[in-house]
């Protein structure tokens, strides 16, 4: 139950619809829209929790040093309606994520695009940076 056709379909739908799933809190209080990030690494954990799911990814910098990054997704109920499950990403999956960095400078970001690094297939383009 890893990569399935629905993931591609949903990714396409979100690509068409723009980045929006379920907002819960004010995006601007937590993330800085002027600090885009694009990082690749290995999934260490998918936290399937409210009010937002989080993906954690080990990211290696050019010197070889590894840092664990957290990426906020939408809430599980919104993700479920898009066909996601709590098993859609598993530790060891190689992903590339585009998003917006946390205002507090920590290794956290709001994920707007999640794709498999090897194939470039998008899993997800939802975030809490959406209109209410």
């Amino acid at each position, binding site marked *: 139950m890893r990569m399935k056709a629905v993931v591609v379909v949903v990714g396409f*739908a979100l690509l068409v619809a*723009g980045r929006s799933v379920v907002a819960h*809190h*004010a995006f601007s*209080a*937590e993330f800085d829209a002027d600090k885009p990030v694009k990082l690749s690494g290995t999934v260490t954990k998918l936290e399937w929790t*409210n*009010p937002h799911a*989080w993906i954690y990814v080990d990211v290696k910098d050019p010197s070889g040093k590894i840092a664990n990054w957290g990426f906020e997704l939408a809430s599980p*109920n919104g993700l479920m309606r898009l066909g996601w499950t709590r098993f859609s990403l598993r530790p060891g999956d190689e992903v590339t994520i585009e998003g917006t960095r946390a205002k507090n400078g920590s290794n956290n970001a709001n994920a707007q695009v999640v794709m498999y690094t090897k194939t470039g297939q998008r899993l997800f383009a939802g975030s809490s940076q959406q209109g209410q």
Partner: protein
Amino acid sequence: MPRFTGLLLAAAIAAAASTSLSAQWPLHPKPGVPKGPDGKVNLTAPTPRTSDGKPDLSGIWMRTTRAEQPGTAPAGQPPLATMGNIGAGLKEGPPYLPWAAELVKKRAGGLDNPDGLCLPQGPGQFHNDPQPSEIIQLPHKTLIVHESNYMMRTIHTDGRRLPKPGEPQPYWHGYSVGRWEGDVLVVETNNFRGVQGGQAGDGWLDSRGSPYTDALQMTERFRRANFGNLHVDVTINDPKAYARPFTVRMEKVVVADGSELIEFICHENQMFLKMTGRQ
């Protein structure tokens, strides 16, 4: 702000790949859902009714995807509100009193938005949240369960009157009584906590922080126009915060594919507090 459109569109496209949705909770379509010749739900079929002939508002409802520019509401109907701004459809915006307008400015950024803090949403939020709500219409009361933050409102329809303001303990959702005027369920609510509640997150009508006070008397007129569409016209009458009462519309579309509300326990993992330095 751009309105939410992704969920329904994506859900519709995802539904086409239904064999891949096996991991979701199973669908339990209710009997009696009207279908067209194409097998799809007929949203314009007649309004269902209860055994006593009243319109039956029961069902799961998702907010509309229709958007409206300020001042362009069709003739004879109130302007459309959004979750972000209850006065989004009003040409001049909500008629704030000066202190209320100042408070909205102070609330910019949304740090104290009760929704973001996992506290109950205000009326402009729960009627327009992108997560669905379920209306359960019973003989003497109607319950509205909002998936977001797992909130529940009780609307008493047993003939009781509104209590005097300030007599019962103020509630986040106030005290609601309903009566039928023809095919419209008219719900009046008072005894809200309002901005005097003491918490920064108190008294938010919408996500921009349009305030309400303990003087708010809200009137909601629920009309199920047909099987698939519900209109809720909401009048905000709060002389402590607004220069005059104003009325806006919330539109909802039925969810009749047999899906149900999904549990949403907001405080499982409140990273928002940590990342904004408050925990």
